């Protein structure tokens, strides 16, 4: 897969050149490329003067990072306690069946990634499902379908 790495210097410019900037830099790279390409990790190690092994260790420790490309729409099902007792598991099952992937995976066409997240802090509107940075509350087995269909429709419409 070919990526345009010319964005990297701009990302590095945003933060001080110290090891303490590692997580922030990796987050911006994740946002830009939807994952952490190997080359970007190597460049980060070089730029921040952090051993490559440490960069890799941090990349695999935190939930925010993915070493595999994520989809354009990242669907995060909240499985926090409140969402759990209000039926998040059924919703997860629904979405897994609809997209034909399991949580943690991405559709082959790279359009959707399905994830579970521990808690997004919108507990009063449980169950909550986030699509990229949009949060949707009060999701049920019935309207969860619509959520994915709507998003799928958007893509088709745009094409």
């Amino acid at each position, binding site marked *: 897969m070919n990526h345009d790495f010319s964005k990297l210097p701009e990302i590095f410019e945003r933060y001080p050149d110290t090891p303490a900037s590692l997580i922030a830099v990796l987050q911006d790279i994740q946002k830009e490329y939807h994952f952490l390409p190997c080359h970007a990790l190597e460049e980060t190690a070089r730029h921040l003067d952090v051993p490559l092994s440490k960069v890799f260790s941090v990349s695999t420790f935190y*939930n925010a990072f993915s070493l595999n490309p994520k989809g354009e729409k990242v669907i995060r099902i909240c499985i926090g306690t409140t969402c*759990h007792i209000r039926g998040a598991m059924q919703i997860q099952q629904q979405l897994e069946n609809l997209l034909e992937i399991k949580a943690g995976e991405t559709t082959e066409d790279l359009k959707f990634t399905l994830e579970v*997240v521990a*808690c997004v*802090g*919108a*507990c*009063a509107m449980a169950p909550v499902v986030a699509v990229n*940075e949009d949060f949707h509350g009060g999701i049920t*087995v019935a309207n969860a379908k619509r959520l994915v269909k709507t998003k799928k429709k958007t893509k088709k419409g745009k094409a």
Partner: protein
Amino acid sequence: MRVEKTSQLAKLQKTFLEKMNKHDRTVLICCGPGCLANGAQKISDEFHKVLKKKKIKGFSIEALKETGCHGFCEQGPLVIIEPDGIFYTRVKVKDVEEIIDTSIKKKEVVERLLYTDQATDKTYETYSEIPFYKLQHRVALRNIGKIRQCDIEEYIAVGGYQGMAKALTKMKPMEVIDEVTTSGLRGRGGGGFPAGRKWATCAKIDDEPRYVICNGDEGDPGAFMDRAIMEGDPHSVLEGMIIAAYAVGAQDGYIYVREEYPLAVVNIQKAIEQATELGLLGENILGTGFNLNLHVSRGGGAFVCGESSALMRSVAGEVGEPRAKYIRSVQKGVFDKPTVLNNVESYANVPVIIEKGGKWFATLGTPKSTGTKAFSLVGKVRNTGLIEVPMGTTLRQIIYDIGGGVIDNKPLKAVQTGGPSGGCLPEDKLDLSVDFDTLTKAGSMMGSGGMIVMDERTCVVDVAKYFLKFLNDESCGKCVPCREGLYQLHALAVAISEGRATEEDLDKMEKLSDNIVIGSLCGLGKSGPNPFLSTIQYFRDEYLAHIKDKKCPAGVCRELITYKVDAEKCDGCMACIAACAQKCITGKKGEPHVINQERCDKCGACYAVCNKRDAIEVA
């Protein structure tokens, strides 16, 4: 323009307050986490769109404000018309024009959007009379929902940065520490360590530089108090941190915000810029010569980073592996330097403590747990939302008087407090006072303030299993008791929920739990077994039902339940057939449906959509 004198700040307050009050009517649109998830942004956009088109005499678009969490999330999206406090609930985009025509153009009320208390059938025009609001006492949440979100002018207008001005110009650092000590403020993140003592210890350490850190890694599922504060009133946190930094002699600080709160990151950053521009942060604050630089540090997504030593490692760009507590972070914290770390809500309380005095704060709450506490009241309770009450309020008062009781008037089975490290307390414990120590004695804990109400359709074995999986997933993996112990504890909980366990397994779990508690390196491990220990203490019978009878009384654990259609109640609507992913329900329209038990995977989707007709039973 930089504020270089307290007299200038006082003048600004007057100016900004006049600006705030000059509007005849103000429209507050709640953009707290719950309302946002329910479409509040679209409602706000609609208000702006319509008002730009319809120019209303005497109403400026400046009087339209997006605020932080107003609190009554269950009834959201909320729109409030001040100064009367008219309270509109469950507002939809299509209601916006009517609200504008009725309550802004004219001074009337849209009756159908008002709140009606289901229990008493009483309708309320204003929010201040509603028991949900009346019984609260908001200190940390004082401004949220009242002022424009992340707006320094409105923050100053309502008295913001006065506490900081008093501390920096009229008090010596030691006097600030004394005031906080007198207040009795204990860590609101759940640890409950006296803030004054922490600051005093750090101030005495002979090492430089010093740091102040704000723990905004609210990882407890079910809790969103800190999120509401960081998004809705970020300046209260900054002001608290400036006062703390002055007290302990720190010139640098970090606000650690978890990765799952992108709006909080944006708002805190915005607030830092706003305060720096006015000279209330950064170099030469308020012309006093005191400098403090604050930076946002974004979490990478790890619950363990809520633990202070792990958080500090994360700030330094490392993996969030905690360190044994024998080395205190006030002495060797972030970058191995003296550090004061406090929670978001703790800092939000500090400005008020300095302004009104520690003695005043200590009159609220109880002698050992002074002040108030914010809670996120969620789960199977009628009035879900964000509340703040004096310490010492009982669980019953919170759940019933403020919360309106359990949905559908069902009996309360348990209330889970303290997040994953806490526990479940049954109905007969509801008269316990909520504070740092009482709930801990009963086998749970107050924790950071998440309070989840559970009814009979919540299985405690399932809840324990859920928390154990969560904690095991979030374990950093450094020490054996937590990494391996919680894994095995979870495996045994799964066995119980699948009807494969024996009574000896319960003994094994209790013994293992004891060793995990003593043997683990950090708080995550040490409190890891709590979900199991607290539920086995009060709900042993439910565990035994799973083990001996191979039944799940709450109808939750999949291996032990069956879904059946009651042919007499079923009206053949086919909703369940549409919802079934396994395609194992058959039946024509208008005729009773049948579930093929062999193919059914017990996902419960059919039960969820049928609930209205009640024709599917779970046994």
